[in-house]
């Protein structure tokens, strides 16, 4: 039955195809058990992409539209780099593709590029887990523009540390920390940040990208010091062009849309608790769905 449905979907997909670019995967690296890096051929997107912007992908006809921040781009080579964590069905399917396979749909570059305020000289870029993949292009762009860049990269443990060498090349100081102390400094990124500030390091700007609780607590840390803090948000999203309203977040008491107003926002204004809650909207359903599929497989 499932096969018939798939065949129908394929025929439909063919029927619906229109003039389109082929988004070919040209490189693939497994960074750790949960994180994969791919380079995808997308010349027009590569030509326009800027740090902070994202794409939306759809692996196949049955797949969801899922946003991913652009981790890097090569304007001449016509490719963009995506680094993603295997969190749901769609990212798992994306991770199954190999070099030579193509992604059905890729839209971008979406969102507003990160804007660095004029009087900023010294920036602390903070990445948490796979958020480091998005923090990296920020650090790289800032470092290449001559900013004084420190990077704090936090991970749960040694096994999932990524991009250490890359960060080293684009920062004045790199602080790697792990929750369990199995690598680098033992502790959270917020502790490292506070220590730096208290020891006299002056940051004009903090950019924090990672899990919502991390971004929330980085903002709590910087608030008393009045250091402007930019966060990159990843709410539920479908179209990414300002149509569905799924990505709405409350910033400074007002509704903002991450796809057209963001994804970067002033972290001191963001209602992180609401964001965290709304990001869980479909979690149970996806879990249930995965269980059903596993049960299906077990039956066969």
């Amino acid at each position: 039955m499932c096969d018939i449905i798939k065949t129908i979907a394929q025929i439909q997909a063919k029927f619906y195809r229109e003039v389109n670019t082929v988004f070919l995967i040209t490189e693939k690296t497994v960074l750790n058990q949960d994180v994969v890096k791919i380079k995808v051929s997308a010349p027009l997107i590569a030509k326009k992409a800027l740090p902070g912007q994202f794409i939306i992908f759809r692996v196949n006809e049955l797949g969801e539209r899922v946003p991913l921040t652009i981790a890097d781009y090569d304007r001449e080579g016509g490719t963009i780099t995506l680094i993603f964590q295997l969190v749901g069905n769609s990212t798992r399917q994306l991770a199954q593709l190999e070099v030579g396979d193509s992604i059905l749909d890729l839209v971008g570059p979406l969102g507003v590029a990160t804007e660095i305020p004029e009087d900023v000289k010294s920036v602390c870029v903070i990445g948490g887990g796979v958020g480091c993949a998005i923090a990296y292009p920020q650090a790289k762009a800032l470092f290449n523009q001559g900013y004084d860049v420190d990077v704090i990269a936090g991970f749960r443990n040694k096994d999932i540390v990524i991009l250490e060498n890359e960060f080293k090349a684009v920062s004045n100081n790199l602080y790697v920390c792990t929750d369990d102390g199995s690598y680098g400094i033992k502790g959270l990124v917020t502790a490292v940040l506070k220590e730096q500030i208290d020891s006299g390091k002056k940051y004009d700007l903090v950019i924090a990208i990672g899990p919502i609780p991390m971004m929330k607590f980085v903002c709590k840390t910087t608030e008393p010091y009045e250091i402007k803090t930019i966060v990159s948000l990843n709410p539920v999203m479908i179209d990414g062009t300002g149509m569905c309203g799924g990505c709405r977040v409350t910033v400074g008491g007002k509704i903002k849309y991450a796809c057209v107003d963001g994804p970067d926002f002033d972290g001191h204004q963001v209602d992180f608790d609401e964001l965290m809650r709304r990001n869980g909207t479909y979690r149970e359903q996806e879990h249930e769905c995965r269980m059903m599929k596993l049960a299906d497989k077990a039956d066969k």
Partner: protein
Amino acid sequence: MANMAMEKVPMPERDPKERAKCFEEVATGYTAAMAQEEAARCLGCKAMPCVKGCPVGVQIPDFIQKIAAGDFEGAYDTITATNSLPAVCGRVCPQESQCEGKCVRGVKGEPVGIGRLERFAADYVREKGNKKIETVPSNGHKVAVIGGGPAGLTCAGDLAKLGYQVTIFEAFQVAGGVLMYGIPEFRLPKQIVQEEINNLKDMGVEIRTNMVIGKIQSIDELMEEGFEAVFVGSGAGLPRFMGIPGEGLIGVCSANEYLTRINLMKGYLPEYETPVIKSKAVAVVGGGNVAMDAARSALRMGAEHVYIVYRRSEAEMPARLEEVHHAKEEGVEFLNLNNPVELIGDENGRVCGMKCIRMELGEPDESGRRRPVEIKGSEYVLDVDTVIMSIGTSPNPLIRSTTEGLEANRWGCIVVNEETMATTKEGVYAGGDAVTGAATVILAMGAGKTAAASIDEYIRSK
């Protein structure tokens, strides 16, 4: 001899109880005999008031006469001479306030079922599979159309008929705009939309999907690439919310999001991955067609109770009469003269109730409709686990914010000369929701049509 029956030949429909559980099309369409019987009700008035009510100027008495005479293909040709999407319009136009609203037969009894006849002609030709597509030799001029919705498709179709090389830039994975993401399958089967779009492709229109103009390329870049004129039909944008407490709770979404998950992403089919919120009791706030679509979709997704919560009375509802009628038949509960004041959440941050206040009608407001006024102390809580906001949209900011010289009004709608649809930027025309704010498919099509004529004139006079 005219058929002097006071009422339209009834439209065959699926049983309300059966259809409220599936996404099959509700109205199944006239047979040839029914169409000829209904066509015979047209008096063929010389003054043709119906045509004046049609934004795209379909020669209505002419095509109806052809149906009456059994020349269904001839009827189709007459319609498509001015309307690129007849199977769509026959289904979703608000005929009662347009062509049928002007029909002489409507003075006493029901007007001629123009929409039903238009649909019949389009379906007949499509099902027969012998439509002939005229391809016009290219005139060598390139035009870009931004947005593959009703306005863009119409503009593209009209320009292709004149020999222009038209490229549609579509943001989604598939063209069709609101016809694909918004209007549900049970009201407008997606296969039909795609076949109408295929007709355009057969005429030589190129469609490039996954192209968000304003991001991947700007209008200026398109013009540098050799497009001599650009039509902007980028559609409605950001959904409005009420600004009441609790709109950030889980289970609260816009109708655009709810419908996009179901329609464009096919979330109603189990094999598709996009999740759709599961609900027991749904409140849809608003009284337009989109609200009806969301409410009827919620029933089909398995909700036990679906409420339309509308602050005015049914007489002021902007939805098509047929949609309201169908929604009621299927079991949607109407709470007219009610307005939400607060959404209430449970301990997990999930919406579990909607506090409403009852309203009464006061003096007419600037829209000419009687203004709803709150009845003090009449608040009560409606038990719901999902709230779908369907109170309109504001235009999409992507194009206007990335195109220099393109003026927008204070609501963000692109400013145009209404006679020509020309914007404040030379060579750039616009129409549809991007200009008017949320309106109807047919008005967008009318604007696309006007713009196509202006673009032709502009390029020829260069």
